[in-house]
């Protein structure tokens, strides 16, 4: 019995030593030395790419977009390997988009996705840039792929839902916002967008419930209040509609255009 105990203890100590050795830091490897001109050139290019990335990202952090553009354009002219190629296209697109060069930003994001077909952040940004450009067809194609690759992604569902809603595909918008809300029931904006999709599908009772949910989560959500008012109006509940538009006008005090719409809608309802 004692022998067995001693043997077990010895094995335990031996295995602990192996683990401890495995955790030790590796001895530093010497920097590869070469006199080969192509190898030296490759090392110089790799170093330039790394340093220009650091400068470009620093420029983006300071919102110095022209400087960032110059750095990432130079990186791309050096034809870096992956993942630096797709990443440089992606970062350059951010700088172009900040400069309102949305066409150029879209070109860079397409290039990033072509180099790295699973690049979700590039897809998310391309949908946003396409929405700015009004290119709903490409936005929808990219959004479909985004949802396929990341079916639980909140951004994928939100983006495709918005594109679908804008393009008149209310059924897809409804399905996407419902899926988004299944995991995010407290997201007021998703309730509002789902309500809009349901209005387009003629499901006014469901829409009313969604607008009320949005307002219970965000009581000063003026657009949701106006949407609720339009439902009341369609049901002939003029007094409630008028109250809703009146309240929306007060809640939209920071958005003059929306406030004017709410006031005009309130005033368009004849008082009994």
């Amino acid at each position, binding site marked *: 019995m004692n022998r067995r105990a001693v043997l077990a203890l010895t094995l335990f100590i031996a295995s602990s030593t192996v683990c401890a050795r495995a955790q030790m830091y590796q001895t530093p490897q010497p920097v590869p030395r070469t006199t080969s001109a192509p190898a030296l050139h490759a090392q110089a290019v790799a170093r330039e790419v790394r340093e220009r*990335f*650091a400068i470009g*990202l620093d420029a*983006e952090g300071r919102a110095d977009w022209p400087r960032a553009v110059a750095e990432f354009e130079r990186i791309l002219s050096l034809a870096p390997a*992956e*993942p*630096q190629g*797709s*990443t440089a296209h*992606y*970062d350059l697109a951010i700088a172009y*988009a900040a400069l309102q060069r949305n066409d150029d930003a879209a070109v860079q994001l397409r290039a990033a996705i072509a180099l*790295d077909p699973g*690049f*979700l*952040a590039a897809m*998310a*940004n391309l*949908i*946003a840039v396409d*929405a*700015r450009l009004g290119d709903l067809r490409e936005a929808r194609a990219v959004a479909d792929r*985004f949802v396929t690759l*990341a079916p*639980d*992604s*909140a*951004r*994928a569902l*939100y*983006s495709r839902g*918005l594109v679908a*809603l*804008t393009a008149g595909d209310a059924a897809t918008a409804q399905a996407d916002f419902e899926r*988004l809300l299944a*995991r*995010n029931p407290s*997201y*007021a*904006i*998703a309730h*509002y*967008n789902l309500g*809009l999709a349901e*209005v387009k599908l003629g499901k006014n009772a469901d829409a009313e419930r969604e607008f009320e949910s*949005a307002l219970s989560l*965000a009581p000063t*959500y*003026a*657009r949701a209040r*106006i*949407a609720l008012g*339009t439902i009341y109006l369609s049901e002939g509940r003029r007094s409630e509609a008028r109250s809703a538009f009146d309240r929306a006008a007060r809640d939209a005090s920071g958005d003059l255009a*929306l406030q004017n*719409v*709410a006031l*005009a*809608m309130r005033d*368009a*309802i004849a008082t009994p």
Partner: protein
Amino acid sequence: MIGLPRHIVHRVLLAGLLALSAVGARVALANAPSLDVLSSQALAPSGPAPLLGPITAVGRKGWECRPELAAADAGWQGAQLPERP
């Protein structure tokens, strides 16, 4: 108008003003937006999600790449979706 009696001048001016106000009212009515137009203006979807931020030279793979993690996140806050209506 020189040479015309004063009461005729008054009537002509009054008729002109009435005609102008009628035209103005007609233009105003024609430009007044209907409830349908107002509804379509108000019932706009929420704004697009803001662009995700830059990525370092290391690339998108790995736990340190916040934009890529945000793109895949199932929660709206982690996904950096619009916060304020």
